[in-house]
């Protein structure tokens, strides 16, 4: 409860600070650079949750605990959500910065692929009736997908030069404006906190569902939909 209140206050403070405290970065039209405080943490949280999902999948395959699969599932859901948010905010940003919502910039391409992968992950889950089978298949697929991601990261940027800022405002590099850095790190923290909070809610929900609905009832539902 206290954590929730603190998180709310923190988020509000960051939003206010993003618009009032930090200065707009040079090299970006108008105030557009402020998107940094929302767009990048979104992308970061998405990456984090996909990673978490993959690790949970591995744990599931090794231990076969339903909780691990629940974690993998909810992390993938949240990852997809934040990924969509990052795409949306990026697209709005792209309209302001590059003049069109979508122009197959490598960044956009790779994020579409990421969205496709996790879309496929959910398609797979919905197409397998037996719960245990579904968990194993989903875990296997998420591992396979994760294995291909490094190839994506190495390969896509080679295709064409990207307009997407890579190092211009990279916070890891020295030279970022200290005010910006402060707000940026704060926002990162806020988004991570938000992520953990939603994740725990989702997990609790999944566990409750699992308790009130024994395994075999879940199968039955799928059966009526015509799956195995």
């Amino acid at each position, binding site marked *: 409860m206290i954590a929730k209140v603190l998180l709310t206050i923190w988020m509000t403070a960051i939003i206010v600070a993003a618009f009032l405290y930090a200065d707009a970065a040079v090299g970006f039209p108008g105030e557009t650079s402020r998107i940094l405080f929302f767009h990048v943490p979104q992308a970061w949280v998405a990456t984090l949750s996909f990673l978490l999902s993959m690790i949970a999948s591995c744990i599931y395959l090794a231990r076969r605990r339903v909780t691990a699969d629940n974690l993998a599932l909810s992390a993938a859901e949240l990852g997809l959500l934040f990924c969509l948010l990052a795409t949306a905010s990026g697209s709005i940003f792209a309209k302001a910065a590059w003049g069109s919502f979508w122009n197959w910039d490598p960044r956009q391409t790779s994020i579409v692929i990421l969205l496709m992968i996790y879309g496929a992950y959910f398609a797979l889950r919905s197409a397998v009736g037996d719960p245990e089978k579904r968990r194993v298949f989903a875990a296997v697929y998420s591992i396979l997908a994760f294995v291909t991601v490094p190839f994506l990261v190495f390969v896509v940027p080679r295709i064409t030069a990207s307009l997407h800022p890579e190092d211009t405002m990279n916070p890891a590099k020295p030279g970022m404006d200290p005010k910006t850095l402060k707000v940026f790190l704060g926002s990162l923290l806020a988004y991570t906190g938000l992520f953990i909070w939603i994740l725990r809610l989702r997990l609790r929900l999944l566990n409750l569902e699992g308790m009130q609905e024994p395994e075999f009832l879940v199968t039955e539902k799928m*059966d*009526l939909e*015509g799956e*195995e």
Partner: protein
Amino acid sequence: MYSLKVSYLCKHYSQTLLFKDISFELHPGEVLAITGWNGSGKSTLLRIIAGLVRPTTGKVEMFFKGESIPKESRRRFVGMVAPAFSLYEELTALENLEFFCKVRGIAYDRKSCLAMMERTGLSENAHKLCRNYSSGMKQRLKLAQALLHSPPLLLLDEPGCNLDSKGMKIVENIIAAQRQLGMTVIASNEKREVDYGDRVINLSE
């Protein structure tokens, strides 16, 4: 009223002769049993009668009050069960029956379909997907499908296959009821089923 006339049927597959000069006539109330070793051509003969396979020579005619029934309308007169048939696995049993009612042009009536399932002992499983049916339940559903339009000619290829003793009893009842309604041809190797026949044709002789 109806009658079936099979004359000089003969069936070859490539060089091998399956059977030749099979002729018989069948009238309402009669039951004909066909028997013979595995691979002797029982199923093929039934499929020829149903019009699913063409005989090498000979012909199959059906008559209604002495008039020959054209091939297109035969579907109304024949009901058939065979091990090679299957129903739609992705539909429930009731949906299957509903489909066959509609496609045959019988006014679909849920009650009568349910009654048919009752008759074949499936009423508890009417809403189960056929994919999840056990072998015996599938066989019962095939029987139900063949009876939907009360066909004057019922062709039963191994009707008791996969069935338990209750199921066998159901087959017995079906054949008994069919004696009132029309003709029956049974192909089987089960002594019990062959014995239902008033006449027996043995393809292995």
